[in-house]
């Protein structure tokens, strides 16, 4: 934890009120995001008790689906199918493609807009995408149960959302605990910040004392795992529903259903309203400069999904193959590095955090040697590499050979040539013109920060799995041994032929934008 974060946490703890961590909002917020809150039956992978969703902050206008006995297939899928039909209706308009000219000639099809789904906490995001989405995405294939097409589509869309949510800096699938904790510091631990109820209390304040209120609020975390005490109160109704089902007693079933529904509605209503309140807290904060560009990246990637949807329901492999896994890791790592730098340059409070961590060097310019010339690697000729000599005015942890950028202009990049307790010399290797244009005077203060994400083009991924990453004699799909084996993740077992025949999402089309498509 950085010093700045410690101070903010101490300030929040003392004043019993959250403190703003950033000067700007670092996530995109759509005009009408779809808010989804859910409770799942404990102990089950993907058996929703109830899902409430809608784009209006008024919970009375939100939709609710309830499964009175989620362990019963009919009951469960009645709820899931109803949700899926509405979800597909929400996604529908975003799948519309428009044709726009490409840079460098030609045309490409892009989605007109990107859907945004907002959930109360990270656990709900993982539940909705990785568990519910995954459990639906193979239905209708092979020996599996038939479900409406909308349910299959929802499985595919949720799987895309789940995978895309791993991209650092994305705003398509937001968990409000994560977003609020990024923008506000509280006096509680980051584990406790995962409870949206208490996190909101720190930010919004509560009538009376905060600490006693937190004790009560900790009882509710807004899903997807229900509070055991609350869930226990449902048990008699769930049981009555099953009894009614067995006895073919429709009146008993309906009564039980309505009791489960009203209980679940009450619980989900709180979570639904809280999620909308969280959006309401973030919305007025001015967006950081980089938000638009990152939303554009979201749009490119969504467009790739939308284009695949033109050819039918996109299918997802059970596991990434070696090429896709390696590409995803490299892509997410470089996105994380780029995000770190973009946020630091967008937001003085984030830059201050890096400075407090010792990753900046602050000093007054003693002299700039404009005439220094050096041969750059791979080059033949000596080129100008100005040497900036600073009298350090603040402590730094930067050492020799570290790459730094000027905080005023990130094009100005250099390497620390020497440092002692009082001075530092930086050789400016890139952005010399920007430095000249800034006409920095002797005695002026300069601040350099140690940030160096890879900015060039990434190498192309290999077009086939090399011999080191597959068994020597077979070209079978990796994961064959697990078919019918012990690691049952709930997805249906398919024969190798069936698996092989699935078009795997992630194959790059020739007209895909380089670098933005997984």
């Amino acid at each position, binding site marked *: 934890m950085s010093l700045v974060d410690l101070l903010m946490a101490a300030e929040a703890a003392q004043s019993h009120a959250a403190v703003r961590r950033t000067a700007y909002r670092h996530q995109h917020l759509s005009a009408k995001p779809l808010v989804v809150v859910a409770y799942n039956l404990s102990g089950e992978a993907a058996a929703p008790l109830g899902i409430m969703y809608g784009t209006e902050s008024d919970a009375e206008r939100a939709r609710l689906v309830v499964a009175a006995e989620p362990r019963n297939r009919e009951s469960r899928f009645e709820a899931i199918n109803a949700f899926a039909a509405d979800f597909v209706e929400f996604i529908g308009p975003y799948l519309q493609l428009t044709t726009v000219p490409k840079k460098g000639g030609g045309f490409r099809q892009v989605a007109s807009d990107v859907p945004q789904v907002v959930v109360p906490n990270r656990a709900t995001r993982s539940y909705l995408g990785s568990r519910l989405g995954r459990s639906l995405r193979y239905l209708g294939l092979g020996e599996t149960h038939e479900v409406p097409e909308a349910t299959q589509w929802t499985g595919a869309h949720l799987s895309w959302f789940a995978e895309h949510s*791993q991209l*650092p800096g994305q705003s398509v699938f937001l968990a409000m605990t994560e977003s609020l904790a990024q923008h506000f510091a509280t006096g509680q631990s980051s584990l406790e910040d995962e409870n949206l109820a208490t996190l909101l209390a720190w930010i919004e304040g509560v009538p009376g004392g905060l600490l006693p209120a937190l004790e009560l609020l900790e009882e509710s975390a807004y899903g997807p795992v229900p509070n055991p005490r609350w869930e226990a109160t449902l048990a008699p109704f769930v049981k009555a529903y099953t009894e009614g089902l067995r006895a073919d007693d429709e009146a008993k079933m309906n009564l039980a259903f309505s009791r489960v529904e009203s209980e679940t509605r009450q619980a989900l209503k709180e979570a639904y309203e809280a999620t909308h309140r969280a959006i309401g807290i973030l919305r007025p904060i001015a967006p950081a400069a980089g938000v638009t560009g990152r939303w554009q990246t979201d749009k490119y990637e969504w467009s790739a999904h939308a284009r695949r949807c033109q050819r039918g329901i996109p299918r997802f492999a059970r*596991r*990434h193959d*070696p*090429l896709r*896994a*390696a590409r*995803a*890791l*490299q892509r*997410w*790592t470089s996105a*994380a590095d780029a995000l770190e730098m973009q946020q630091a340059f967008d937001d003085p409070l984030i830059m201050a955090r890096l400075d407090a961590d*010792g990753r900046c060097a602050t000093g007054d310019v003693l002299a700039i040697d404009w005439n220094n010339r*050096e*041969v*750059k*690697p*791979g080059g033949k000729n000596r080129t100008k590499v100005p040497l900036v000599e600073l009298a350090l005015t603040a402590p730094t*942890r930067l050492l*020799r*050979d570290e*790459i730094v950028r000027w905080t005023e202009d990130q094009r100005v990049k250099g*390497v620390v040539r020497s440092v*002692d*307790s009082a001075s530092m010399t930086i*050789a400016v*290797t*890139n952005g010399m013109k920007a430095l000249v244009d800034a006409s920095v005077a002797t005695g002026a203060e300069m601040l350099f920060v140690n940030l160096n994400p890879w900015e*060039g083009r990434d*190498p*192309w*991924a*290999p*077009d*086939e*799995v*090399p*011999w*080191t*990453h*597959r*068994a*020597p004699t077979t070209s079978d799909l*990796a*994961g064959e041994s*697990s078919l019918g084996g*012990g*690691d049952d993740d709930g997805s249906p077992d398919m024969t190798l032929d069936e698996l092989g025949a699935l078009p795997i999402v992630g194959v790059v089309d020739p007209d895909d934008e380089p670098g933005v498509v997984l």
Partner: protein
Amino acid sequence: MSDRPDFVSINGEFTRRVVDDLGKAARGEAVLVEAPPGAGKSSLTVSVSNVLTSEDARLRLPIVTQTNEQADDIVLSLRRRYPNIRIVRLVGTSGAPSSAMLDAAGPGLAITSDHDSTDVQDAQVVVATARKWEFVRSKQQQNGSVRKYDLALIDEAYQMRSDALLGIAGLFDRLMCVGDPGQLEPFTTVDDALWKGLQYSPSRTAMGTLRAFHPEIAPHQLPTSWRLPPSAAGIVSEAFYPYSSFDAGTEAWQRELTLGAGAASPDDEVLGRAAADGWAYVELPERLTIRTDTEIAARLARIVKRLLTRGAVVVDELELGGRKLEASDVAVVAAHNDQVQAVRFELIQLGIDPNSLVVSTANKVQGREYEVVLVWHPLAGRRDATTFHLESGRMCVMLSRHRQACVVVGRSGADRLLAEFPDADPIFLDEPEKFPDGWEANSLVLDHLSGFRVA
């Protein structure tokens, strides 16, 4: 002494074995060499390169390294040992120039960023980082065809991540991989839970993936550490290389650290113990502290100062007559960057230029060696024992950099922390166990250090 194999004969023997195996290896096969710290990995790589290039005058041999520093090191030792081999150092198109390379350039060594240049076509050995080779492969792929090399050598293969190997393996039909399995593993900054249990998980080590798919590969084990003194080889071998033990290549009498005149201070006692036994464990009183424990930082700085003030003479098998210990022969190693900074600060307070010696993290001193190493024990003053602090690779790097003596500064209570702190890491299906186990290795090390305790 005569029955003891010497460096030259062991190196020659393993060079012959590796070259033989390479000759027998078919396409899609690899020869793997595992080496403990200071076992002469780079010498082996250099000798194998020499034999291969002299057997086949038309051979162009790629060498893959993990970092630019490692690439520079290999080029320099090739130049020193076999100045007649024509080498190209292939570099990226961005980044700062390495002055060592620029100085070494001349007839027989070209530096270029272009794999299609005539320099590369004419060379016998092409040295570049894995990242650069990935770009070479990518460019050839964009131009329509990948021109494969028959054979490549990968240095420090255990520090390579699986995705890095995936990016370049298509360029090479056969591989020779050399590495130290006990060192720090490569890491990822993003959540890799998605790929846990997959043999080809991109966040695994490259050697983990290669061996999972090619279980028939039996690695050659270099048997001797030429760096570690006999006092250190035993514990390092036992704690970090339980399945491939190794010995020191020297006898105790061959290594000697003679200190200048001292007095009866606690720091002198520490140095005396280290000089006599090869180890000293300074155990400060038990206390929970913040990460940058100033007491430990100050103590490390004081011991360094005392060592440099007293001066010392280093005698070993290379310097039979002895030579003066320089500041650059001394390193202070810590787990965290802020601890490094704390030590540097304390050194400045004592009037020592922290740049005159090496003060660094374990990650940055991998592959380096010094005469005397001072270690900030990763568990000192902590209330938790996380995977990071228990990682056996980190401890192994810290305890295996020295040729003469190692001084560890910690706090008492570390043994209790090890016993009491519960392991809360998630367990993933199909994910192989890591060996050696960090907890066990740390316990063995603490046990060993307790025999060299100085107040």
